[in-house]
């Protein structure tokens, strides 16, 4: 069993950098929504920053990611340029998808962000296809597909896990178990005690981990990546975490009992990560420098997004088919 000491400080700082990139992006979205500078449906990811960062730090930039409409933490942790992301969230032509996809459909092949879907569970079968391409071409890439505990109850989950195991695909199914499927508590929607309990039915390797623990999460991620790259097949990771805010920003989430909200606060991965780094001898100035650099990148990204033009209406005729639609 790997231990804390197995992770060198550079790797830890890299995970921290990615975590803060997510944290600050999410924080800025919420600030701008609150102040009325931005109007969009936003799915806050507060509480799930470290989980994503620890996973994506185990990947190469050209490894593939498939995520969901509630996946800004995954995209940012994977390394998507913030200016392109912000421009897309604001519907601008400079966005990752020229403003035509929006927050639910962020796509950036340059950083491996291949599909973001708004349909729960739909990413899993597509991730198999990406992994199949890598298996067939021998390019060594690994595909990670992120989804929530709720998505494990839809049929596509079953079809995808069965096929991935049958074909030994280099894919990692990362279930971010934040204990709520939209407004419905885990136990009200899921018969299995744990998501990983389903893996034996697919003869698939599976592991449950505290997703808020950067070291544990990263080690599990590295092991799954190594398995996939070695051609030994897929892994189901159930990363336990909390969603510290509502499903959509601004919505009431009193349906989450006070005790669980308190539990989530105690498990908030950001202060815990800072304490861990302090314990490992990292001083406050180092962390502050990381945060300032991200803050500056973010300022520039927001400014770029707000000042960018909207797409021309001619875009309605472009990218529908390969051939332009006649005016």
């Amino acid at each position: 069993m790997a231990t804390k000491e197995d992770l060198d400080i550079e790797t830890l700082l890299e995970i921290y950098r990615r975590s803060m990139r997510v944290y600050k992006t999410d924080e800025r979205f919420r600030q701008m929504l609150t102040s009325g500078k931005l109007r969009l449906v936003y799915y806050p990811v507060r509480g799930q920053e470290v989980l994503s960062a620890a996973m994506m730090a185990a990947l190469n930039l050209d490894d593939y990611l498939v995520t969901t409409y509630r996946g800004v933490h995954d995209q940012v942790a994977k390394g998507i340029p913030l200016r392109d992301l912000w421009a897309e969230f604001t519907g601008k032509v400079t966005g990752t998808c020229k403003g035509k996809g929006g927050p639910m459909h962020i796509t950036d092949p340059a950083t491996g962000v291949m599909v973001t879907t708004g349909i729960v569970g739909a990413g899993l079968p597509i991730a198999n296809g990406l992994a199949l391409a890598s298996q067939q071409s021998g390019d060594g890439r690994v595909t990670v597909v992120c989804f929530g505990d709720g998505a494990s109850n839809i049929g596509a989950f079953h079809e995808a896990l069965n096929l991935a195991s049958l074909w030994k695909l280099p894919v990692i199914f990362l279930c971010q178990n934040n204990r709520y499927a939209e407004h419905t508590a885990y136990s009200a929607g899921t018969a299995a005690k744990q998501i990983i309990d389903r893996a034996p039915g697919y003869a698939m390797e599976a592991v449950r981990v505290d997703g808020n623990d950067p070291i544990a999460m990263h080690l599990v991620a590295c092991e799954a990546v190594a398995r996939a790259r070695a051609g030994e097949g897929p892994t189901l990771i159930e990363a336990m975490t909390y969603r510290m805010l509502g499903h959509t920003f601004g919505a009431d989430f009193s349906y989450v009992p006070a005790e669980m909200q308190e539990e989530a606060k105690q498990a908030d991965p950001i202060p815990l990560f800072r304490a861990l780094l302090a314990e490992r001898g990292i001083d406050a100035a180092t962390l502050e420098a990381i945060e300032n650099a991200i803050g500056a990148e973010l300022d520039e990204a927001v400014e770029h997004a707000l000042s960018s033009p909207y797409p021309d209406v001619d875009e309605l005729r472009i990218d529908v088919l390969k051939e332009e639609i006649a005016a």
Partner: protein
Amino acid sequence: MSKDGAISFAQSINQALDEAMAASDKVMIFGEDIADAQGGGVFKATSGLSTKYGTGRVRTTPIAEQAIMGAAIGAAIAGYRPVAEIMFMNFLTVCMDQLVNHAAKLRFMSGGKTFVPITVRCTTGAGVGFGGQHSDMLEAWFAHVPGMKVVTASNPAEAKGLLLSAIEDDDPTLFIEDIMMYAQKGEPLAAGEKIPLGKARVRREGSDVTVITYGRPVAQMDKLAEELAGEGISAEVIDLRTIAPFDEDTVLNSVAKTGRAVIVHEAIKSFGVGAEISSRIHEELFADLKAPVKRVGSKYCPVPFSPPLEQAFLYSQDEVYASIRRMMG
């Protein structure tokens, strides 16, 4: 292949797949029972291909349409050109999310950063007694989805040429095969020859009425036009080949000339492809029309099992004939 060189529709599909796989190692095939160990496909369309190209490129899948379609989409985004076989058209309902929300829309939603060059083959058609869940003609559903191309063939040579173009095309293309036509024989298409998507074929020129159709009814309308010629009526027959996007220019040019049009398809008439084409003709050519456009399709009813019911359900060639006689006054 028979002595006279004619080949069947199924063999023609097989030839197209074979040529496409030989031409590019990016072409892969997924589907239920398609490898030789499982019989080479229930209609033998993929027979011999797994032996020739290996079970890495010709993959028998579980009976899991979402998994098949998802695998095709993902591999396509990563640079492959998968051909997914969905055994019967009705089974597309099982993977509609993958096809409609993903395959058709990813190019647009990604601003062109990704695209999905998949070909989805499926069979269907009434007349063999498969009943309500294995016989529907659902092409209008897919023609209604921006981002999809929908193609169907009227004979073996057309099937090969169109399928080769579908596989080469950079958009998701639904290729509809008619179960009643698999055994039908015809002249083969020369090796390497293709038929472009988006272009209708004027099968027979005429001056009195335009018959617009696709798939199985095409050969029937050729014969009907011959009969009508004997009665002094000159019918022009158009095979759309590509249903979406359809070749509007060829259709409108023809109807502008004849002033009369009948649209014939096996799909039920209500809300069908015929309704769209009829509307376009009325919108563009109302002043030139000598009679209202007529649609002939199957009845508004699930495909029935009992043979007399199944025949009564199907679009009627007699109705096409009667409509044309009536239009001619």
